[in-house]
């Protein structure tokens, strides 16, 4: 039972990353300022990914919670730390990703929508460019994944 749940947990993690990878590829494609027709195809990718990712995400969390009970790990700090980290990354990526996607899609579908020049300039422009950037999303996601994976495999706390 425990082994099959662990199998399902890893399988749903793989499915989640597959769907999430589709979203990630769109964030990088938006950097290339696609035209209105290309943006339609990218929207279709997002729709497909958003259909599958929540199902895989729920499966991942549910099997993880059940494994925590079966393995009697809820008293261990590594499990709480990984859960907290997962939630933190999820909220951060969701907020920043949504802002980046909304801006990118708006710019591509309506060329009249442009970021105000003052938003690009100065320190706030630099900070904005740093955080609303697919490279930042990718780095945050990969570092977060590495830490969560390390916590789960090595159970150091």
């Amino acid at each position, binding site marked *: 039972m425990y*082994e099959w749940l662990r*199998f399902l947990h890893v399988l749903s993690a*793989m499915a989640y*990353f597959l769907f*999430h*990878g589709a979203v*990630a590829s769109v964030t990088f494609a938006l950097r290339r300022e696609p035209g209105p027709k*290309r943006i*339609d195809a990218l929207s*279709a990718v997002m729709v497909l990914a958003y259909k599958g990712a929540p199902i895989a995400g729920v499966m991942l969390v549910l099997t993880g919670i059940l494994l925590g009970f079966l393995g009697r790990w809820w008293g261990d700090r590594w499990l709480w730390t990984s859960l907290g980290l997962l939630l933190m990354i999820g909220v951060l990526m969701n907020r920043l990703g949504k802002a980046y996607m909304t801006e990118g899609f708006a710019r591509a579908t309506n060329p009249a929508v442009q970021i105000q020049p003052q938003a690009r300039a100065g320190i706030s422009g630099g900070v904005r460019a740093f955080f609303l950037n697919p490279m930042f999303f990718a780095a945050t996601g990969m570092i977060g994944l590495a830490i969560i994976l390390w916590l789960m495999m090595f159970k150091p706390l």
Partner: protein
Amino acid sequence: MHKWLVFLHVFGVMGFMLAHGGTTAMTFLLRRQRDPDRMRALLDLSGNSWPAFAISFLLLFVSGIVAGFSGRWWGEGWIWTSLVILLGMSVYMGWASRARYHRLRKVLGLPYFEGNKDQPALPAASLEEIYAVQATINPGLLAVIGTGGTFVILWLMMFRPF
């Protein structure tokens, strides 16, 4: 040392799934598109993920091979079976990509891969020709092979039945 190798292997697998997401979405959506520009966007989406795809595959492959030595698993049947399935899937996917998707890239006027080298873009072919090449793509078969193979490999690695 062995545990770190397994960590790298699992990390490589997750990275590989992330890098493969754009291609998987392209596979399913391409058949429905009638507009060449949308087809180009999907094909580019997949093509641009190639570096991440190659790096993560290399990481999972090399760490898996080395972990096989550090875990002393090369005498067991499950590791050989997984390796054969992985290689079989890679060969089939690579062939399907060249035979179908790069042919479609060619008729759409995108740079493509043929004769073991990158080829520059040619003028786009007629819509009839584009649709004819598009019709040869079978996402269902790719999905069955990709999902089924992954499922079996994961089961072999986690349960080590023989």
